[in-house]
């Protein structure tokens, strides 16, 4: 049981370092078992150094977006270990700046050649990188419907709706 955990850890850790370098170019990340001898007595930490930061950086010091990018690297690492035919991501880009939004969406786009990716998002950058677009709305009566004739332009316009009124 311990050997199984250590094997899975090795595998996912390799994935993690690889994915983190893609999502945060110039940075480096790895997983660490707090107690490698007796893994069930310790936890699993993510040691991540975003581009430009000191190698002594601890996870709790990271910014909101930097923590999210580390967590997303872990998600992709687990997915690589146990692939699926489709992936559903609900608003994983809530605290990402436009550049990090793009990196996540880019990785989804590349991987969508092998599997189906469905991402719920409110961010224009993420919307602009998808192949297909679905709009959901509720009229003033709380009943959810799909918006007909919805495409990238319509999706981006939803975000602009307010800016046009300004």
């Amino acid at each position: 049981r311990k050997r199984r955990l250590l094997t899975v850890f090795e595998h996912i850790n390799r994935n993690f370092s690889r994915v983190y370098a893609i999502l945060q170019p110039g940075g480096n990340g790895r997983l660490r078992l707090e107690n490698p001898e007796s893994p069930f007595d310790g936890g699993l930490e993510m040691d991540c150094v975003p581009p430009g930061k000191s190698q002594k950086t601890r996870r709790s010091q990271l910014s909101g977006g930097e923590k999210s990018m580390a967590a997303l690297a872990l998600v992709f690492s687990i997915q690589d270990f146990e692939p699926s035919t489709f992936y559903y991501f609900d608003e994983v880009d809530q605290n990402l700046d436009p550049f990090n939004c793009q990196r996540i969406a880019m990785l989804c786009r590349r991987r969508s050649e092998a599997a189906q990716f469905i991402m719920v998002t409110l961010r224009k950058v993420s919307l602009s990188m998808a192949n297909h677009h679905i709009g959901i709305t509720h009229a003033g009566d709380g009943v959810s419907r799909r918006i007909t004739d919805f495409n990238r332009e319509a999706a981006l316009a939803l975000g602009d709706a307010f800016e046009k009124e300004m």
Partner: protein
Amino acid sequence: MRLMRIDVLNFKSFGGEVTIPFQSGFTAITGPNGSGKSNSGDAIQFVLGTRSTKALRAENLKELIFNGGNNSRAAKKMSATLTFTNPQREDGTRQLRVDTDEVAFTRSVRLTEKGEPKSEFRINGEKTTSGEFRRILKEAGLRGDGYNVVLQNDVTTLATMTAHRRRAILEDVA
């Protein structure tokens, strides 16, 4: 094998029948707060078999039935259907152990006379047991609790959880 569409009837905020079609590749879903985006993801989890309704933000099965909003009457039954492509592979087998090119998995809940929720499971419209339903999905690698579904706030939870909790995730995966 890919997900072709979600068909829901009176599932959560989807009053009446709504179809959400998917193509291969990368699809983005958007819309205002409270419009039903996460509820459509809940439909996926509901069919693929999440154990607890709490994961669907509902206290019990009854809460998953369209409650009428501010203007309509609450429904008495609901259903959610996921339809997957299921092509024959070179060796003649299919990923889903059903001999059709498309397979529709339907899970429904209706209220009995006494208002008790009663679940039913169908494959391609034919009633089946919950056991058989889940076995066929599981054998094809389709699970309700896998890491292929990342719910709203999962990322923040994963980023800020304790190291011990994160190691427990590793154990789950192993």
